[in-house]
């Protein structure tokens, strides 16, 4: 790809910047808080401080629980905070605030509270950051009612979903697969006010023999695998859910009902993964259509090792997806 065409493409960090800028311009209740925003260390906050001022752009001290709780309270009192937690491995310190406050306050107070909060966190695996920076913890949050979760695999989707998330009156967690920050995640620059509604999957490729549901980088791998399988005469349909909660079950069910086979590609740890949920749900609701085992391609149940000699093998790969698809035919 030449520099010229690449310049016309939207990247992940630009998508975030654009979504945040557009929505903060549109609605002055939206504020942005995160570590190192003013110095723009992560690269998605360029120009924000100049444009929106220090009251709406705040650098957070290191206090994850406090930060999420502050966002919950600010939302209950009329703001629409975006919290940039930077790396998804930092969510754990705030888990009580996610579960006990953000997810439950509306329900427990009988609908009195409204919590329009967006929390962004990058899935920072696959890059030698080792066990403390490489978590993919979204399945934990799927187990918590009251939270919505998006996990886009292209920059245009990220832009459109993030804007929907900021407008949503519910807490939305946005997980960004850092492996898509570069070339893999780029896409055509959408028109002004590009919106992708929450809860709608994208069918990346149509096919008839097997359905591959791919999450985050998994969607990219699924497309690669589908191309390889096509050469072998296997026609794979690739679905990117984009939103994990609420999941677009109709699109997945319709596809599996046609193909009779399912592979789910999910960068999360295997046990109790999003892939587990999708497989379980399909085994429950599409059983009669099934013609082969439901196969999950996930990260192996181990921690992320530092050594470049160890790390890559534990994640989903195109080859693992291809092998999984073949397994559904045995």
């Amino acid at each position: 790809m030449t520099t010229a065409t690449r310049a016309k493409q939207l990247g992940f960090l630009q998508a975030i910047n654009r979504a945040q800028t557009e929505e903060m311009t549109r609605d002055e209740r939206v504020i942005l808080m995160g570590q190192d925003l003013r110095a723009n260390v992560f690269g998605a906050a360029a120009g924000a401080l100049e444009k929106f001022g220090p009251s709406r752009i705040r650098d957070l001290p290191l206090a994850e629980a406090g930060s999420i709780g502050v966002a919950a309270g600010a939302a209950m009192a009329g703001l629409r905070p975006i919290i940039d937690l930077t790396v998804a491995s930092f969510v754990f310190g705030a888990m009580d605030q996610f579960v006990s406050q953000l997810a439950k306050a509306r329900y427990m107070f009988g609908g009195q509270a409204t919590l329009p909060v967006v929390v962004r966190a990058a899935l920072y695996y696959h890059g030698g950051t080792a066990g403390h920076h490489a978590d993919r913890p979204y399945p934990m949050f799927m187990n918590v009612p009251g939270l919505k979760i998006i996990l886009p695999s292209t920059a245009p989707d990220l832009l459109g979903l993030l804007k929907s998330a900021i407008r949503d009156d519910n807490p939305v967690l946005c997980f960004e697969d850092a492996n898509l920050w570069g070339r893999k995640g780029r896409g055509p620059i959408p028109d002004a006010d590009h919106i992708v509604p929450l809860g709608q999957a994208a069918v990346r490729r149509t096919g008839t023999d097997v359905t591959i549901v791919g999450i985050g980088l998994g969607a990219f791998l699924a497309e690669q695998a589908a191309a390889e399988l096509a050469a072998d005469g296997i026609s794979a349909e690739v679905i990117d859910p984009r939103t994990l909660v609420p999941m677009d079950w109709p699109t997945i069910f319709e596809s599996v009902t046609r193909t009779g086979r399912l592979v789910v590609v999910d960068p999360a740890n295997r046990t109790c993964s999003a892939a587990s949920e999708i497989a379980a749900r399909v085994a429950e609701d599409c059983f009669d259509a099934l013609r082969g085992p439901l196969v999950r391609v996930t990260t192996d149940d181990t921690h992320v090792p530092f050594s470049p000699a160890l790390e890559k093998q534990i994640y989903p790969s195109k080859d693992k997806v291809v092998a999984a698809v073949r397994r559904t035919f045995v």
Partner: protein
Amino acid sequence: MTVSTEPTALPAEFACAGGRELAMEMMRRMQRVRLFEEATKVLFHAGELPAMVHLSIGQEAAVVGACLATGTSDYMTGNHRSHGHPIAKGARLDALMAELLGKATGVCGGKGGSMHLADFSVGSLGESGIVGSAIPVATGAALAAQVRGSGQVALCFFGDGAASEGVLHESMNMASIWKLPVVYFCENNGYAVSVTAEESLSVPDVSMRAAGYSMPGVTVDGQDVLAVYRATAEAVRRARAGEGPSLVEAKTYRFHEHAYGLQVPTPYRDQSVVDSWFATVDPLTLFHDRLVAWDVATSQELDALRAEVRSEVDAAVEFARVSPFPPPEAAYTDVYKEVTA
């Protein structure tokens, strides 16, 4: 050092215009908390409560003195000992009582219950059964007030037990660096269930932690409603003036067991000491006697006020009793807000 007011002369707060009304409102709200909770004891013994309740009896002066230093447009968060806070903030008793019985007319539609009351109409943003967990929420409400420039203040209740939770530290630090209009208010009743404050806190006074966040900290006599009011009012003034957060600690007493009716296998405090509290540090009696001594009200007037509150509570109990339960579907609503901006 614990600050009390001097019982001698009529205090300035009550001598000025509206002073008598303030004094009577203090007494009214303390009576509301007391009689509301006395009623829950009756309901408990009658087997009408679906769950245990944590009573604020003995702590009314702390709760009411603090809340009356704020207005209903100000924010407040509390904890599991959850009845007193919204009552003191001005919430209607009927919807609170209905909530305790899990009724559809409850302030949370029956979904919250005793430990999780909230009444947004009076700025009560909800209590938390997870101890300490609402502290950052109050801090965030203060942030919203600051960003919106609304002049509102957030009042954040927590106990001596909660003072050991990390979110208190994180919240006080954020509030201080951003000069948020929030008042951290510790009801130090000496116990976290069975563990004494001496054992769980590493300092004699929780207020000694304030200096670590460059905010003023003061410990007041929590049985003295005026002392509590004064200290909180000063903290509220600071907050509204943009001078940032404060920490107010009220030393108080929990007259009943941690949860009413709870049986603790190994006693951790002497019943005779507890009994003596009723005689010597009952905040309602103390305030009653001062009001009479100061000529703010007569015993008869105070009795009449108590009777009024009793009718209010009786009506609340009746309202709660006759209210319907929510329909089963209600279990599945309010998980999300359906219609969005």
